[in-house]
């Protein structure tokens, strides 16, 4: 079966570059599944997990937003942060979740609220990716 090269790059360096058979991710407009030979496309991603399936292997990556660029034989994911389950700092994520929840309960200014909400989403996403992997 044909494959596509998936590369995940962040400002702090490349995270992954490997061949997979299918990529599924959650874009702003909904779930997307990408197989080899897809037409070139660009889509923004939500804070979510990207699932990668290949020959007898599967991988999950937690991304915080960013976007996805698709070419027939290559998928590039550009995100401000992206982590494999093994790279996730689980304690930090748990702490971030608690902090964000506390802030949300305090209900201060509007901008803080938004920021806390995003932080909470990122933390939940990380925890989710981490826990589903083990």
């Amino acid at each position, binding site marked *: 079966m044909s494959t596509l090269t998936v590369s995940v790059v962040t400002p702090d360096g490349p995270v992954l570059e490997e061949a997979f058979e299918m990529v599924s991710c959650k874009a702003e407009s909904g779930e997307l599944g990408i197989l080899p030979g897809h037409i070139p496309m*660009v*889509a923004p991603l939500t804070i979510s997990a990207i699932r990668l399936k290949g020959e007898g292997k599967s991988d999950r990556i937690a991304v915080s937003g960013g976007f996805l660029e698709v070419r027939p034989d290559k998928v590039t994911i*550009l995100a401000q942060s992206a982590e494999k389950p093994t790279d996730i700092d689980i304690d930090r994520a748990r702490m971030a979740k608690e902090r964000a929840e506390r802030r949300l309960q305090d209900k201060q200014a509007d901008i803080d609220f938004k920021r806390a909400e995003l932080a909470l989403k990122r933390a939940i996403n990380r925890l989710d990716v981490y826990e589903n992997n083990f």
Partner: protein
Amino acid sequence: MASLRDIKGRITSTKKTKQITKAMEMVSASKLNRAEQNARYFVPYSEKIQEVVASISQGGGDASHPMLESREVKCTGYLVITSDRGLAGAFNSSVLRRVYQQIRQHHTSAEEYKLITIGRIGRDFFRKRNIPVDMDITGLADQPDFADIKDIASDTIQLFTDEEIDQLYIYYNHYVSAITQEVTEKKVLPLTDFGGESVGSTSSYEYEPNQEEILEVLLPQYAESLIYGALLDSKASEHAARMTAMKSATDNADDLIGDLTLSYNRARQAAITQEITEIVGGAAALE
């Protein structure tokens, strides 16, 4: 003529200074390696994002976004990247001089510009001259993460989106090599220069959901990445500049120690000669 003890004291203190500058040189050299590596890691990200932005903004035609359009300039934003610590030769002063000249030349009142500084030296420089600094960040790590500057980058871009500033320039030291750093002025907003030729023909994308919404996400991210790139570049320059400065300080200390040792030996010799003369003179008087 200085006494033997004085010279000896100076030699010892110069030697101690030399040890310190030597150590700082070595520390900077290893930090430079890391900083260079970070800058390299960032390249694939910036290239890719630039490629996508260029192909959307050039290929699309009907795509428009406030960040892509030049408007009448009422207020200019300057983002100045300096270091937190000195002892880096002309690293900070050359950037600051350049920005200071620009401001002097182009602006008559403080309402026409906004200053954003990264690094303590830059902030203190402008505060001392009574130039208001609107935002600043200090105490960045030597190997900064994207998360460290995300807030200041997005706030800066927010200034442009809110039309508080109509253009944004970054000033920083571009890392050319370990011995050369260049003060660079880069226009970040509005995004007009995508560096390099259009790549639109090779990749015509399908946009999901549409171009405008992608630009909405992509452009701020792109502008933030430009700022982060400049910061990484500047960090590499900082370590290189400090390394060179410390190297020349070490060399100078070596020269100084050489000179001092020479005059120490001369003084010692003179003292010995004088003693001999005295003894001979004393013996001659007894005969």
